[in-house]
């Protein structure tokens, strides 16, 4: 497989009155064709900002991409003109947002929103676009597509709207879909439906998928590779098996220990990560996770650890990653 997307040392900052927020601070990762990559982390860790940076959707002011490169099919998206990036958005790379209530235009019919995209990007005639829209709605499992095309977003339930969003994202047969918390606003049974649908369609059509989520269960079910983010940095990357069964960063370890699991005996006390995520305007020269870390040593306050290999295509950024297996056993 070849690299579809290659992000190198991406830095996105927000210049606010409270100071410069280093929302994304030197993030690098790749996406290969047709694979599903998850970006996991808690609110404010920069996962959504890195996704928006890919499509240059960071509003200026206050936000700005200040460094790095994003190569998509060989082209650096940070250097192309505004016209060109507009052609890529929706056509080559599309997005599914968290909130289906706000990401569709409430005053336009579903049909218009779908056909507009098709006519604009693919240059289809009105009739052809209409046929394709019906085909897309059928593909995402919406019944009576002809009638739905005439309806407005408020006529549809949350799950249905998210299906429409997926139809929109797939409409121009993109190479990559970025789904930012695609099921967080949905109920569990609907979440399962939508995730199955996304998995099947992306596999069927060979579309690569970046799923941004905080739900570790969703990641375990669907992702090939997992990237864990904390305070604007990638702190661990590997395949799902490595991340879940052999985590090397104390934060990943902590995340996994803090969720109650249905397949384990009840009554065990949860092990939370103490403290709060750091203020991104006040990061020092040490590891950002240090104040919450059980294993922190003096060195952690002095130098920021870089991502180092800990296994086959498995990297982690911790000064004690070689000892982590023993530390894990001991605690």
């Amino acid at each position, binding site marked *: 497989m070849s690299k579809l997307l290659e992000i190198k040392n991406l830095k996105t900052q927000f210049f606010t009155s409270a100071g410069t927020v280093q929302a994304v601070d030197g993030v690098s990762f790749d996406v290969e064709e047709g694979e599903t990559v998850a970006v996991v982390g*808690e609110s404010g860790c920069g996962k959504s900002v890195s996704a928006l940076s890919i499509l240059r959707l960071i509003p200026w002011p206050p936000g700005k991409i200040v460094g790095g490169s994003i190569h998509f099919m060989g082209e650096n998206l940070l250097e192309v003109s505004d016209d060109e990036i507009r052609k890529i958005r929706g056509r080559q790379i599309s997005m599914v947002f968290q909130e289906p209530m706000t990401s569709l235009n409430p005053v336009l019919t579903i049909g218009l929103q779908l056909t507009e995209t098709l006519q604009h990007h693919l240059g289809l005639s009105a009739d052809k676009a209409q046929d394709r829209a019906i085909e897309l709605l059928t593909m995402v499992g919406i019944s009576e597509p002809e009638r739905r095309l005439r309806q407005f977003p408020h006529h549809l339930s949350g799950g249905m709207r998210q299906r429409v969003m997926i139809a929109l994202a797939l409409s121009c047969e993109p190479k990559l879909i970025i789904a930012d918390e695609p099921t967080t606003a949905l109920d*569990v049974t609907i979440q*399962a439906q939508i995730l199955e649908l996304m998995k099947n369609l992306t596999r069927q059509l060979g579309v690569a998928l970046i799923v941004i989520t905080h739900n570790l269960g*969703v990641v375990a079910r669907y992702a090939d590779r997992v990237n864990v983010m904390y305070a604007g940095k990638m702190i661990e990357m590997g395949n799902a098996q490595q991340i879940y069964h052999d985590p090397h960063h104390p934060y990943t370890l902590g995340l996994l220990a803090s969720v109650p699991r249905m397949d384990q005996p009840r009554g065990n*006390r949860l092990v939370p990560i103490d403290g709060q995520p750091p203020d991104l305007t006040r990061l020092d020269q040490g590891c950002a996770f240090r104040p919450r870390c059980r294993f922190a040593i003096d060195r952690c306050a002095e130098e920021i650890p870089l991502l180092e290999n800990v296994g086959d295509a498995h990297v982690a950024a911790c000064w004690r990653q070689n000892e982590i297996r023993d530390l894990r056993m001991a605690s």
Partner: protein
Amino acid sequence: MSAAPALDRSALDPPGAVSPFVEIRNLKMHFPVTQGTVYQKTVAHVKAVDGVSFHIAKGETLGLVGESGCGKTTIGRCILQLESASEGEIWFDGEDLTRLNQKELGPVRQKVQVIFQDPYSSLNPRMKIGSMLQEPMRVHGIIKDREKRRARVRELLSICGLDPKFADRYPHEMSGGQRQRVGIARALSLNPEFIICDEAVSALDVSIQAQVINLLEDLRAEFNLTYLFIAHDLSVVRHISNRVAVMYLGKLVELADGDEVFDNPKHPYTRALLNAVPIPDPTVEKERDHKVITGEVPSPMNPPSGCVFHPRCTLAVDSCRTSVPEFREVSPGHRVACTEI
């Protein structure tokens, strides 16, 4: 409501049974849907809660799960007397709350408290944390002396794992997890016996969520609290609850001991719900059968006839369309509303 004849409790309870701490009997909450702006007429009813009965023993945590719109929050609001139920009884500590007037409810409100989901909208942005925590004590007159109230506020904050100096801060100066701790401190300020946790940890990040869950568990042990834990996250409910009730479209479909509901689910809806929850382990997930339930939850304004779950059910037979299944006991303490299991 008050005109309803008194229910003969002796006929329902086995002789010698101690009446439970909290008991809901045949609770119904139907919200009228009106048309017209000046001359409003009722055109339909949203049957948010439609005949729900359960009890909670003292010191117990009952988990109430279900998807959005199933009526779980409405049950909580009815118990708190924020809604007056259309029908049914709500017994708390030997009193039927639906029959009490506002004055009589005063002492009850002290004992029954609530923790809401959204720590951003449930705290007054213009009040300092300290005055927010003092207000209930002042209103209920439990601590009259101002200095003592202040001392109690500091105590409450430290019980909930916050620095006592947070009393001088405003909500916007705090993170979501800290705000939720303030919400918990506020609920505790009146020394309640029963706390309704309505999605109390749903808005929090996982690492913070675990902190708050542990806090709720510690407080339960320390102050012998009883919880009604309303949530949609089944893993969290399983973790914290002694017994679990599953709700669908205004009705209970299954109620049993926590382990029983999760290890031996009977109702097809409970099974589907459990199947839909992903487990954070790729190895386990690979082996699981990802059969997803089709369709969506129907409108509670016009619920399906017979068993409300029949349009989405894989086991449904003809009789499910016409007759409402009884909420029957299939094994001691395990109740299920399904005829086909």
